[in-house]
């Protein structure tokens, strides 16, 4: 009997010993080792060097962002959160739905001591649910409108001429570019509907109104869709079949003179070393002229209720992505991750000129642009709407009438949204 007690006591000691060693350790799930993986490593090193030498961050890599989201859905549906890591990284559009569907899965960050005013309001509008902050922003989703300056020059334009123009003017310039160089001025993943969403946001408009999809009879959206279809017909816009077609063919095989997407597209563009120095970025055209700002994608870190050491997780996030210049600089240098904290992005690294963009200080420009992005109504059915708008564009190009195609999209989305 005593033996048993001794054994039990020993086992208990071991358990305590293990948990004591684990006290300074956090796990985090993420999906892109070259991109956000480098940002997380930068934060871990920063925290270890400057706050807690015992600190350890265990990185759990999955193959795509959808894997993180699926693991949350699975854990949330079963009510068993034990397989979630302490912190998870996922795309901003999901958190609203995740908090409303699985409220028990998350810890809010109200008492983490983060200066939220130091972040762009639009970025935070995703991760604030019911007035509470749930996420610490990692990468900035601010959209860039990048042009090939050398090609514009061939057609007699400068990058400054593209600032604040109307989309009609853009189409006109696009036609000239196609006629002279055979290149399109823009491309998009035909199944993804990135452009309509960003163009609407640049107008300060949403594809939702009062919690419902606002597609049919949406005047701005109708104009944008009509315009995009005209662009395709005039060879100004290439619709790729899918995402890889968009990145690997239209951008990397040098078929376009312009790129419009979240700034995370920059590493894709930079793969084409021959074009270094030929690109520059500016703001987005709008329907009636004036500079437009938008955002697309971007992710944040969220603390799960399975976190063994919430205090440490909050301290770690607050110190690093909450505003440490060192984390921000290293994340940018090693991973190309452009952060969201306005004051941390005033460093030398951020304000340095970037050779690929003809010496333009794109990083500080992007963070500055991010502070202008208008907040528009978001909805859990973001991706559903994107898919059906993408379908509507395909149908219009195949001969359907714009109003009818959007009406059909509205019906399909309404159907998907009603449970």
């Amino acid at each position, binding site marked *: 009997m005593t033996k048993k007690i001794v054994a039990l006591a020993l086992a208990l000691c071991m358990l305590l010993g293990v948990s004591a060693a684990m006290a300074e350790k956090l796990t985090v799930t993420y999906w892109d080792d070259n991109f956000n993986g480098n940002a997380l490593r930068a934060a871990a090193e920063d925290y270890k060097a400057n706050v807690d030498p015992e600190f350890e961050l265990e990185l759990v890599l999955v193959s795509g962002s959808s894997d993180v989201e699926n693991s949350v859905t699975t854990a949330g*549906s079963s*009510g068993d959160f034990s397989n979630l890591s302490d912190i998870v990284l996922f795309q901003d559009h999901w958190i609203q739905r995740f908090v409303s569907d*699985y409220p028990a899965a998350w810890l809010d960050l109200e008492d983490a001591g983060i200066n939220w005013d130091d972040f762009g309001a639009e970025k935070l509008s995703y991760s604030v649910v019911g007035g509470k902050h749930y996420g610490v922003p990692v990468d900035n989703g601010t959209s860039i409108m990048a042009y090939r300056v050398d090609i514009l020059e061939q057609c007699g334009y400068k990058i400054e001429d593209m600032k604040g123009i109307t989309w009609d003017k853009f189409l006109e310039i696009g036609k000239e570019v196609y006629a002279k160089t055979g290149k399109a001025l823009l491309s998009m993943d035909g*199944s993804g509907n990135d452009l309509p969403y960003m163009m609407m946001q640049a107008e300060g408009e949403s594809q939702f109104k009062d919690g419902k999809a606002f597609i049919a009879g949406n005047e701005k959206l109708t104009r944008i869709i009509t315009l995009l279809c005209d662009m395709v017909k005039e060879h100004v816009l290439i619709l790729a*079949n899918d995402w890889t*077609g968009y990145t690997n*063919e239209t951008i990397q095989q040098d078929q376009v003179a312009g790129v419009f997407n979240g700034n995370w597209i920059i590493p894709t563009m930079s793969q084409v070393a021959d074009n270094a120095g030929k690109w520059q970025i500016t703001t987005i055209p709008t329907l009636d002229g004036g500079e437009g700002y938008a955002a697309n994608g971007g992710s944040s870190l969220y603390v799960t209720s399975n976190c063994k050491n919430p205090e440490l997780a909050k301290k770690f996030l607050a110190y690093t992505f909450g505003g440490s210049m060192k984390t921000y600089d290293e994340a940018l240098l090693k991973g190309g991750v452009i952060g969201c904290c306005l004051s941390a992005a005033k460093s030398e690294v951020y304000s340095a000129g970037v050779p690929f963009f003809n010496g333009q200080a794109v990083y500080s420009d992007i963070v500055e642009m991010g502070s202008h992005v208008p907040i528009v109504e978001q909805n859990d059915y973001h*991706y*559903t709407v994107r898919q059906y708008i993408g379908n509507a564009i395909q149908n219009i190009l195949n001969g359907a009438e714009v109003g009818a195609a959007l009406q059909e999209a509205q019906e399909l989305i309404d159907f998907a949204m009603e*449970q």
Partner: protein
Amino acid sequence: MRKKKGFGLLAKQEAAGWGFLAPASLLIFIMSFYPMVQAFITSLKTGSSANLQWAEPLFKNYTRMFKDKVFMTSMGNTFLYLLIQVPIMLVLAILLAQLLNNKDLKFRGLFRTLIFLPCATALVSYALIFKTLFATEGLINAFLKGIGIIKENVNWLGQSGTAKAVIIIALLWRWTGYNMVFFLAGLQNIEYSVYEAANIDGASGWKTFWHITVPLLRPVIVMTGIMSINGTLQLFDESVNLTNGGPSNTTITMSHYIYNNSLGQGVANFGYASALAFVVFILVAILAFINMKVGDTRD
């Protein structure tokens, strides 16, 4: 310890039979039947996946799908693939099996292996290879252009008609060899003397095939038919990896749409997805039943 007087030989054999059956039955029950029942229960519920409530009315998910245009499209697509692909594939498989069963053919083993090999490739990788082959700047376009059949590159996967054709071609490539193996096995069981007798009676090759091979292969045909119908109704990988259901959902399959409703687009609409899955299950059961009735020669 000789107490087991009550067990006769028959009873012992019976007990042994049950003993052998029990593990497999238990596993099938836990892995297949229990989930089926659970899926049916889930299909009567609605709401967020963490907090499912009984639907009001109870069969709401089932009535809902008849108003669902995308589900109707997916069903149409799946049956289109089924009606075109399965007959072509089975006929090709029988013919290939017949050819490769020829005793005088050289390198038989090699040919058999080569034809069987496609189904040893992973579903995702073969779909991706087909995607690259049929890309706008892909090999197929380069080849067709080279021999002068087409003038401009065709966007195979970007148009609904050609995208469906590519899916069917991909399915044929992958599964014909697989079915051929079953027919080959079936052919081995037909006595060579039957053919010799037919030969002596003066039956032509075609007559031998039609009156001897096909009837004797009937059980194998029924089995491959059921398996192919079942497989096609649950078609998923090709729709996801080759076309992602596009363009504009015109090539989506039922399983792909079920996935989109459960995890694919983060909608987590498990109640509705289960109802759809249950309908697919019923369809498979009905078709398998018809197939077995048609194939059954016992009166």
